[in-house]
């Protein structure tokens, strides 16, 4: 009377009382948008290198080298290390030098004590920084640098003449 459907004909393994429940699939490594993450409770003393983007929410003491990938020091991240990356973003704290192949960004919560070398460097209001910033000769973020400087150099003489004409001695 009742025609077994193909689905019913095939016993479901999950309903069989003899089989153990299937093991949950193993969780992939924790990642954030495809980047590897050093969690807030993790403390690493040594060199960190790899072939993927990295987010540091914990503490790293040593060196971080991911020249072809992005490195983010998260809000709770602390690095006592030199950091090398393609794009480096600092939302936490860094004591060390930053070497960005493309950009280095210090957000409003970022604190950096060290030197920054990158073609483009950006500081948001509120960022704390002490050290040198070297935009270098490579790109340097300059727009029409040489032409602009020559033009403005000519204006300099004219402005100085006007300044001297309007000068008032106040001794």
């Amino acid at each position, binding site marked *: 009377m009742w025609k077994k459907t193909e689905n019913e004909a095939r016993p479901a393994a999950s309903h069989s009382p003899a089989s153990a429940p299937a093991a949950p699939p193993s969780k992939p490594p924790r990642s954030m948008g495809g980047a590897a993450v050093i969690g807030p409770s993790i403390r690493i003393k040594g060199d960190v290198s790899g072939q993927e983007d990295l987010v540091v929410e914990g503490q790293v003491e040593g060196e971080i080298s991911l020249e072809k990938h992005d490195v983010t020091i998260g809000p709770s991240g602390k690095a006592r290390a030199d950091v090398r990356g393609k794009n480096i973003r600092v939302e936490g704290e860094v004591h060390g030098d930053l070497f960005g192949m493309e950009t280095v960004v*210090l957000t409003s919560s970022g604190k950096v004590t060290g030197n920054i070398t990158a073609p*483009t*460097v*950006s*500081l*948001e*209001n509120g*960022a*704390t*920084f*002490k*050290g*040198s*910033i*070297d*935009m*270098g*000769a490579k790109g*340097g*973020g*300059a*727009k029409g*640098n*040489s032409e*602009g*400087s*020559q033009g*403005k*150099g000519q*204006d*300099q003489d004219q*402005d*100085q003449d006007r*300044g*001297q004409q*309007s*000068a*008032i*001695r*106040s*001794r």
Partner: protein
Amino acid sequence: MTSLVDSLTAAGEYRSPGFSIVSRLVEARPDSSILDLGPASGSNVGYFSELGCRLHVADLYRSLNQENGRPAGETLGFARACREMLPDPEGGAFDFILAWDLLNYLTEDEIRVLARHLTALCRPGSELFALISIRHRIPSQPLRYQILEGGRLSYSEPSPHQRTSPEYKEPLLKRLLPGFAVERCFLLRHGFQEYLFRYQPESVASGSP
């Protein structure tokens, strides 16, 4: 030579004749080294970034007591702050030093201490840009300056409290900053004088003012 300039157009922002000269000199020398004695500022970093300069931020403002703008530990503390916060002279000399209005918050002894450190960081011809208050009262904390386009500066007062201004005059500044000759000076209507000093070590050796 002092120029009286009516350049204030808006509260917190003005056309800076002194910094206009600095910016023209910097733009003419794209490989300049800049020492900023004030706090790091995104717009200032962006400005020098476009010129390809090497910028060092010393942020001596942090050496000042947050409460009343006084260096923690008085002169001895400030000397230590200079040693710790200023770059090592072995790293090279600087073409331009931006002191903003830091000098208004230092005693005469502290300015002498700062001058000793700065001379080690200068080469003949290095320029020092400073704003000196001519008002009786100044904010308890140094103003924060941001570089805008066209030689304009914006400033913000981080503290509503006031304190007495030292009102340093040019002859005294020359004594406190040996080796630094006044190249240009501009009197501004918002209560500041902009000084452009040039480092000329031979002026110290010859004893000339």
